[in-house]
């Protein structure tokens, strides 16, 4: 075989198989660590288990029990409240901050951007530990400040009173995620053509009209992305309450989330079958909510 033919054959061979070789590691990892567990968990959801050796087929009994379990209702209730706060409190705050920090005349913008984003550099567990100390009755920073300013009882138990646990979790997540989502909005705001605002000024539009008719359409794709991502993230809430409430669901289950409920049943009661059923219900719920959100925000509409 001549050298030219050899070169050509090697080249053709590489061209044909190289993509498969490059994709192979991902495909292997995906099949072993994603697809197989996923399918297996769907099968497990129809069993009551005590480890892999002891399994009893129960059909849809896990799902029936789940839907009737008051703890599951509590978990949904808590998770929905948290998710609502994420969408209706956290995201407007993020957008507001982004608009503020997008002002060219604001001095030290980069400093503030870094400052607001920095809570994300340390991770949820760190933030949870930090805030669990801040919330301590009597000696915690928050109680001391509130007591000094508003004479709120200094031994208020933020993480020990059922009615205060969720506000404490929301407050913590605001501190952590407002800056994070702000970055998305900031990036989106910077893509809006300044001439659109100038044209609106010429037309005599008020600041609110400019926001509604220029800013909102301009950031819509990013906003939808952030809303869906925040909702999914909220439904997966686990680390914050787990650490802040010291591995429990908090007083009277006030900090019980769906994922924590899953964890408790899988790893405390040891029933992976039931935990799988919870996982699939969660997946279904998040899928439906995401579809609804995308429908409401007009993501399905194609531009004419």
């Amino acid at each position: 075989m001549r050298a030219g033919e050899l070169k050509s054959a090697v080249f053709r061979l590489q061209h044909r198989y190289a993509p498969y070789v490059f994709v192979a590691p991902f495909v292997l990892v995906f099949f072993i660590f994603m697809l197989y567990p996923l399918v297996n968990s769907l099968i497990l959801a129809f069993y009551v288990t005590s480890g892999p050796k002891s399994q009893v087929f129960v059909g849809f009994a896990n799902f029936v029990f789940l839907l009737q379990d008051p703890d599951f209702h509590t978990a949904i209730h808590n998770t929905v409240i948290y998710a609502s706060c994420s969408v209706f409190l956290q995201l407007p705050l993020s957008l507001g901050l982004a608009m503020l920090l997008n002002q060219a005349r604001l001095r030290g913008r980069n400093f503030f951007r870094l400052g607001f984003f920095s809570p994300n550099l340390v991770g949820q567990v760190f933030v949870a530990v930090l805030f669990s100390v801040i919330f301590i009755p009597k000696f915690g920073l928050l109680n001391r400040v509130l007591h000094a300013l508003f004479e709120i009882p200094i031994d208020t138990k933020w993480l020990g009173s059922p009615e205060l646990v969720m506000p404490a979790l929301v407050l913590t997540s605001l501190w952590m995620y407002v800056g994070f989502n702000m970055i998305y909005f900031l990036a989106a705001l910077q893509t809006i053509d300044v001439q659109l605002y100038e044209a609106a000024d010429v037309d005599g539009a008020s600041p609110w009209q400019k926001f509604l008719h220029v800013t909102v359409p301009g950031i819509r794709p990013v906003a939808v992305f952030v809303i869906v991502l925040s909702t999914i993230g909220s439904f997966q809430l686990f680390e914050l309450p787990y650490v802040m409430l010291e591995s429990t669901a908090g007083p009277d289950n006030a900090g019980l989330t769906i994922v924590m409920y899953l964890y408790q049943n899988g790893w405390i009661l040891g029933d992976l079958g039931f935990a799988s059923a919870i996982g699939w219900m969660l997946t279904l719920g998040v899928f439906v909510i995401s579809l609804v959100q995308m429908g409401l925000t007009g993501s399905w509409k194609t531009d004419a």
Partner: protein
Amino acid sequence: MNRSLSEYLPFGKAPTVILITTLLATVYLVVNPVATPDSTLRLWTFARNHYLAYVEGTPAFEAAHPGTRLEIQLVHGDAVSRRLRAAFWADLDVPDLVEVGIDRAASFFRGPVDDVGFIDLTPYLESSGFGERIVETRLAPYRNRGRIFGIPHDVHPVMLAYRRDIFEAEGIDPTQLQTWDDFIEVGRRLTVPGQRYMIELNDAKADEFNVFLYQRGGGLFDADGNLTMDSDIALETLVWFTPLAAGPTRIGASLGSTKILTQAIETGYFVTLLCPDWRTKLLEIDVPRMEGRMALMPLPAFEPGGRRTSVRGGTMLGITKATADKDLAWAVAEHMYLDSEELAARFRETNILPPLRDAWLLPAFLEPRPYWSNQPLGKLYADVADDTPPWYTSPFVEKAVEKMGQVVAACGAYYRENGDAGLRDFARTRLGAAADEVRRHVERNPF
């Protein structure tokens, strides 16, 4: 011939370098698997003071068993049961011996009895005679369907730790606090809301509530594993406990966290604490400046002449089926748990009263302790140990503990809102609902 390398690499150099690096890394990992431990036996413990004591006791064991290498591993409390469960399920990295907390142990006994990951220790306990020397009630939590899967590490009677200097300054004689009524009366005088509380009590969890429940003779389960968390005793205790821990006239408070207990005790925020033996060592370590200012007394009784102690916590040592040499693993258990010299040394390290009655007479248990105002700590706990109530359990104990915590928290919230009015009915309803939920979980267990 002048051919460049790139002619043979249609996707460029970078992807090729990535591919080669990946292949090399894979080959490296295959030929260099994770090193397997060179120890003969491995023991997991979740308590740091146990770990330190076992490490100290290891050379003596290894000397008595030449060629054996015992490795003690400290695994975090929450992680030990999760990792153990995963290890059992995957049949991977299962230790030979493992210590499990009393509130988690029974969850490992769920499922067919032959599938339990621990070996039955009954033959070892019978042949060694230790079964008769151990406080019988402490074996109960580790007994399941006629088998004993663990030996108890402790008795964990509860006493009351108090700030002796504050008691003296206030003219309080602890020997006069015979009943909880006496205690509450003094507590009303000493408590200053927001500044000082007579006792550490948590109205958001069942930790302290359960101490009172057991002292009264109640419990979450009976000896047969039946749920009893909604018994009359539980209701009476709940109605008694709630106003003490919640509401404007409470004499107890909680920081909801152990993170700043040091500050709370040093500043006199808590005057007394429910104190099982294991907690005395934690206080010595965490609040060292209180040396000589702390003292212990038996719990006040619920009625004159009644029980003066309760129980809180516990640990079992189990031998897993994964161990290659069960007899050698039992020898470790004997050495660490049942050898008198080791127990004496361990007591000095941990302040934990072992379940072997004959050990309580050893000198180590009679020594005065400067931290505790020179009281003989071991003797104080040993004096009440025989009265320690039994702690019966079930594979669903964690669920029951969690549910009881919710009831306590709900009653606290109710009391803060409504005071005494309707508290008993509310507590009865919540107890019943919580018990029903646990029973539903029990009933769906097909094993």
